[in-house]
């Protein structure tokens, strides 16, 4: 079971990239001949290369030869010591931050994210997390709003619910 899982993870990026390229190619074919010429050329080239990459991952003689010739320094075990839950938290927090920026605006999301990440993920004391969050929010406000005169996005929530102008 563990071997199957590790094999799946090994093939996943190349297969995923293959599918994305196939979708790109399918979309390219919906355009007129002149604009699609280059995308089609690029798409097919990448598909062939990804095919070779997938083949190089297989535990066959050809796979080993392809790896030796084209990717001798590849290291799929590079992240062997990775703790999966940390990865999901970090990636999930990135999604939450993006949503926060869009809904709550730049300044609120900045402070909230730093506070939560320092307190929950970094296991810092609430005071330390609060100080870090306040310092970063102040820095962003000073740097962008005061120094560079950039109006920071107030967030969809504040724009539409509280009618604060952009």
């Amino acid at each position, binding site marked *: 079971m563990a071997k199957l899982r590790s094999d799946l993870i090994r093939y996943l*990026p190349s297969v995923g990239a293959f599918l994305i390229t196939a979708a790109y190619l399918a979309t390219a074919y919906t355009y007129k001949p002149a*604009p699609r*010429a280059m*995308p089609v050329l690029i798409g097919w080239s990448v598909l062939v290369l990804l095919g070779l990459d997938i083949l190089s991952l297989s535990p066959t003689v050809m796979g080993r030869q392809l790896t030796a010739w084209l*990717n001798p*320094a590849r290291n*799929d075990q590079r992240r062997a010591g990775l703790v999966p839950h940390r990865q999901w938290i970090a990636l999930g927090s*990135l999604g939450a931050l993006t949503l926060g*920026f*869009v809904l709550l605006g730049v300044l609120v999301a900045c402070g909230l994210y730093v506070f939560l990440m320092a307190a929950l993920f970094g296991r810092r004391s609430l005071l330390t997390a609060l100080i870090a969050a306040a310092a970063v929010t102040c820095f962003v406000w000073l740097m962008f709003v005061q120094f560079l005169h950039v109006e920071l996005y107030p967030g969809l929530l504040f724009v539409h619910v509280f009618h604060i102008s952009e």
Partner: protein
Amino acid sequence: VFEGWLHGFQSLSSPHELLFLGLGVTVGLFVGVLPGLGGVATLALITPLTYGMSTVSSFALAGGVMGAVPMGGAITAILLNTPGHGANVVTCLDGYPLATQGKAGLAIGAAASSNAIGGLIGAITVLAVLPLANVLVFAVGPPEFFLLALLGLLLVATISRGRLLRSVISAGFGLMLATVGYSSVTGGARFTFGSDYLWNGIPITPPLIGMFAVAEMLNLMIKGGSVLNTQTSVKVTNVTSGLVESFRHWGTLLQGSLIGTFLGCIPGCGAAVSSFLSYSITARFSKDPESFGKGNIKGIIATEAAVNAKDGSTLIPTLALGVPGSAEMAVFMGILILHGMQPGPFMLIGHQTEIYSLIWAITASCFVASAIGLLLARPLSKVTAIDSQLLAPIVIVIAFAGSYAVDREVDNIIITAVFALFGYMSIRFDFPRIAMVMAMVLGGIALRSYEQSMMISNGSWSIFVTRPVCMVLVFCIIVGLLAPILLRRSGLRLARGDAARPLSRPEEVGDAKVKLSDG
């Protein structure tokens, strides 16, 4: 020409610009000590901050960063065997053994003076060569630009040694992304899916911020701990002897600088390649090759001189031809575009003062960074001990805010997040990010020039082989295709020979405390 130099110097010497230069140097030094971040991520991070600044101020800031990052990286490479970025890996080879012998100050002093002199030689070369580049305005057209971009794309494959296939795949993805948007040559929008935001193509800055600054921080956050896992006590003494040492070995210093200068002119030939080549040539032709890797000061001098000389000469293809000479330059092009400049031959005519101020800024930053680096060597090394759980969220939110500030588009934030995920996956599954970024930048040039060339020649490919500059470029492309095979053969010979130390992969150096960024 001299008037241009003088104007550039004058515009940089106002207190306001010097302040930005100092800020850039300080940021560059601090970031330089953080493995992975390096010049590319820092430039990506400061790019949106330059919005609203004058062009010269932004160039002072960017030049300060570019000149200072290698010095910051050299300090931790010597003191802690922790290279700041790819090019500093070679500094570890002799720097850390010297530090363990109690000669850290000697090594840092040598690195500082080599950095400054290398930077100066690189800058002099640019100042001498750049005015001649005006001639290119009339010699270079769409076919030449297409071939130049193609040459750059071919060289992308050599960036990540040993990962040819995945480099080319990443470059392919970069090209795919470059096709997004409306094509003014063929007419019609491609892959915009009805979005106005994508009409002009994917903007370059948010993806760069996502793929380098944010992705690197995510990686650090997931790894946990601090950048440096163990606290090492360091001794920094004998610095003055180190400064003198570079001048004592002036031949090595000059050789390293010239190698860096030459390789910097070739698009795609990064600092890591320059430093590796300079080091291996110095070691190979030394009377005492066995001492290399055990604490030979010449190893540091050759490496550091090459790294900083490259910074200046990389500006030649970037500014004169619009082809980024390195990943840093690809990001720097974002700053140029942000300030309404289109890199290429015509930029040399319209923005001479700004260009010369940039060159002066890089030169000055090499000297200032070396001086500050010497003073701050010890406290700087402590930056690596900051807990990533605190450092990463702070850097990420600043990067996001900066990405929004580029053109006040909320979509920039989403693009940054998507590319951060893309960047992290690239790190995780070993797809070189640099190849994708270079291809994204070069892809736009290549596509546009190819389509224009086809229109000029009525669809005939002969246009690419009948013009004089095109013929030279085709020859360079053929050499570029054959070079990996020749290098592989010579590498095999080197491995069989009496090399003092294997120089096969950066990751093998030192205690492998850090994951080296492919940036």
